[in-house]
């Protein structure tokens, strides 16, 4: 082929369009920039955009379409876990390559996927540490949408908190359906739970759209961040842009990236983004950085391998280093997850986050959580001799491979 093809598999319609459209634009911007630099291996990069329309089986179908019909060399895509799980068998069957840019529950490592978002140990655990150590929080509300990511994260956190001596009655767990919009009772429960004398915080894994009504209700019921801070793992700059943030000032989020971090790389990135979208008000967020890092690493890996052949690129990827937008260097580990710094930010009234805490160095993403009984013995290592995504260190076996 005379071009290198990059598939973009992000929903442009349906419920997930809100989040995913931005990532499509990010990939297109990266492709643009790379082409301005002369492309890759002397060829132009061509982006192929399809719309899986927030319909999970459609992700598999569109993934197959990209790989067999359009013959793309790499795919950037997916947001929800289920969409990733849906394309995964297709990727493995057709030996495609995908970069997945969103924080997720972990417990997965595929040869054909690189996970550039945060694993639970890169978001949840540092955040809880911060709450306990810096804010003196003793009671926790784990509020989430009822799906795998919150379930897993909360399981991990529960185990972690109990390990730290938090009593079971000081942990309240609550699940709500997708798109839940009537938060009155839950917020009032949280308020009650938080007014029993001990410093309380909410750890929120509430997904997507449900956040706006949740925060509005928090504001209206007068729960300020000083009384009961909320630390969220799915609320970033973009989610806040749909919200009047004045009542939310002081609530927290844990990410690997904030737009407000001042580094030259970030400044350049934001500038490029504003130029690309022709909108000086567009915000940037963590999954965009993950996409950015993923794309850079892929480009480097292709250059290093001298080909776009998936197996070669996959091996070349491991050990790739790219500067983070927030400073420091991101490294692709053997388990296809990144090492990244973890930042905790407070919401400001301009919809940005103010970093209030960060890890000293980078944290390596953990494919398999150490806090879950099923997976504490599992590791992932895609280099010889193990070459396996779920290797049991006890039984020294590897299971669940499709090839």
């Amino acid at each position, binding site marked *: 082929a005379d071009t290198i093809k990059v598939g973009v598999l992000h929903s442009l319609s349906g*419920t997930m369009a*809100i989040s995913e459209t931005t990532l499509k634009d990010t990939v297109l911007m990266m492709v643009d920039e790379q082409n301005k630099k002369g492309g890759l291996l002397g060829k132009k990069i061509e982006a192929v955009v399809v719309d899986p329309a927030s319909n999970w089986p459609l992700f598999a179908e569109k993934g197959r379409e990209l790989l067999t019909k359009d013959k793309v060399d790499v795919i950037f895509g997916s947001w929800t876990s289920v969409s990733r799980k849906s394309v995964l068998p297709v990727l493995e069957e057709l030996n495609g390559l995908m970069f997945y840019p969103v924080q997720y529950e972990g417990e997965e490592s595929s040869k054909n996927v690189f996970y550039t978002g945060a694993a639970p140990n890169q978001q949840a655990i540092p955040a809880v540490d911060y709450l306990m150590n810096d804010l003196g929080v003793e009671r926790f509300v784990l509020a989430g949408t009822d799906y795998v990511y919150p379930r897993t994260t909360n399981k991990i956190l529960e185990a972690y908190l109990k390990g730290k001596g938090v009593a079971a009655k000081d942990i309240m767990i609550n*699940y709500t359906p997708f798109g839940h919009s*009537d938060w009155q009772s839950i917020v009032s429960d949280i308020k009650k739970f938080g*007014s029993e004398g001990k410093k309380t915080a909410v750890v929120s894994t509430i997904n997507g759209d449900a956040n706006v*009504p949740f925060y509005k209700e928090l504001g*209206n019921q*007068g729960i300020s961040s000083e009384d009961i801070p909320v630390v969220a793992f799915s609320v970033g700059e*973009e989610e806040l842009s*749909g919200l009047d943030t004045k009542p939310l000032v002081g609530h927290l989020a844990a990410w690997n990236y904030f737009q407000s971090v001042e580094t030259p790389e970030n400044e350049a990135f934001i500038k490029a983004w504003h130029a690309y979208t022709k909108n000086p008000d567009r915000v940037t967020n963590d999954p965009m950085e993950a996409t950015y890092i993923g794309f850079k690493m892929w480009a480097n890996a292709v250059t290093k391998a001298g080909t776009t052949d998936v197996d070669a690129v996959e091996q070349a990827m491991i050990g790739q280093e790219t500067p983070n937008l927030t400073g420091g260097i991101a490294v692709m580990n053997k388990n296809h997850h990144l090492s990244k710094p973890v930042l905790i930010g407070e919401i400001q009234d301009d919809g940005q986050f103010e970093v209030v805490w960060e890890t000293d160095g980078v944290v390596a993403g953990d494919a398999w959580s150490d806090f879950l009984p099923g997976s504490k013995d599992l590791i992932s290592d895609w280099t010889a001799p193990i070459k396996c995504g779920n290797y049991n260190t006890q039984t020294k076996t590897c299971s669940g491979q499709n090839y």
Partner: protein
Amino acid sequence: MLAELGEAKIKDMEPILVRIEAVSDESVLPLLRTLLNGNLYYNEAEKKVIGQFESNGETYYKDVFTDEINAGIDKRDVDKIRVNNKLRGYLRNAIARIQLTSKSPSVRENAVRELLSKLDGSTVAVLEGLYTNETNKKVKDAMGLALAMNTASQTELAASNRIAAIEKLSSSLENDVRNLLTTLTRDDNTAVVSAANIALEKIAQRANRFAFVDQLFFGLSLGSVLLLASIGLAITFGVMGVINMAHGEMIMLGAYTTYVVQLIMPNYIDYSIWVAIPAAFLVSGLMGVLIERLVICRLHGRPLETLLATFGISLILQQLVRTIFSPLNRQVSTPSWMSGSWEINPVLSLTLNRLYILAFALLVFIVLVIVLKKTSLGLNVRAVSQNRNMAKAMGVKTNWVDAMTFGLGSGIAGIAGVALSQLTNVGPNLGQSYIIDSFMVVVFGGVGNLLGTLVAAFTLGIATKFLEPTTGAVLAAILVLVFIILFIQKRPKGLFPQKGRAAE
């Protein structure tokens, strides 16, 4: 000292603030408030702190003490003095401590209540000093409460004193009181423990009553949202018989209209709602008329086809909004008079936005009923929906009636959008999330019966909210659905069925 504040790191700020508090009186309040709001800036060059203010969309800087405008300064000259949660907590308490001597009794009372959970020795000493001289009854009560709390918690005091204090506490609903009593139930002194238990019991009884009111309010409020969302559909679907899948998008248009109105008048957010309501009615209503004239009017006598066409229209409208406004959610601000809550007592507070929306929903309902009952439109539209040809033969301008009715239903959906924009996302999927509930409400109430829609909305709202605490949100939703399915078996035509020979 102030300059230090400007240069200090967040970690080092607390001691500075303590010093500031120690030397000052009410005159520093503006400084602390500005800092609390995050509007305090530091001018490096002049080594001065100044406040940032905004009006008419322009930012300017003022001296926080003198209110003198520093004209020459712009954004680049100043750095924000950042605060974090811990500091905000400290600031709030500091303000309260300073305000204990404020002239306004209500300010004093709030200050006391603010400090209930932070009763340290020095505060108590200050309170004791103020208590005797306090003239205002309410403030005095609050201070008495604080002092009683202090007394009750002092283990070295005589049990009888403490018990008396506990009895005094049992009439309060304050959280801090309850927390204190709960700790006292673990006291060494058994008499104190039993007194605390009795007091807690008493408080719990009162609190439960209020909790019920609270839940009822949640239910009514959810009901009002359902009512608003479905009332337009009760017209287009219930009365006209159009299976209007684009109803949700009409709501969405209303919400986006609110957004645009706020965009146009950014400095009058508080009044924007009053513009947004008629604007949304017009936008959605006109869109409704357009849809009716272009599509629905050609589908007379084919009600099921309206499902197909309006579904297509809903897809188009969604994508239209996505193209124009981007797929991201838009930010709609809440006017200040609608934010916050109406605190009736420490355990019962009703959020203002929901209160207004409840009232608004009822108002819209009543106006609509009057329009349909008192104007010929109501009669004509029913006649047209029952027998179009005969209505024509009786001189009813069926085209006009159809367009007006559909416009009315859509317009009301638009108004609902204004209200919903205050509660939830304003995004392209807004409509989708309400369409199913809306149909459910209309059908549950009985198609073609506005009163049924009202009752159904509130029934479902209240049922959901009373189930939720025991079952969780997901199960509550499922149970309500199952309940509706079973209920319809008993009453196959909804709560208020159409009766009579012709209804079969």
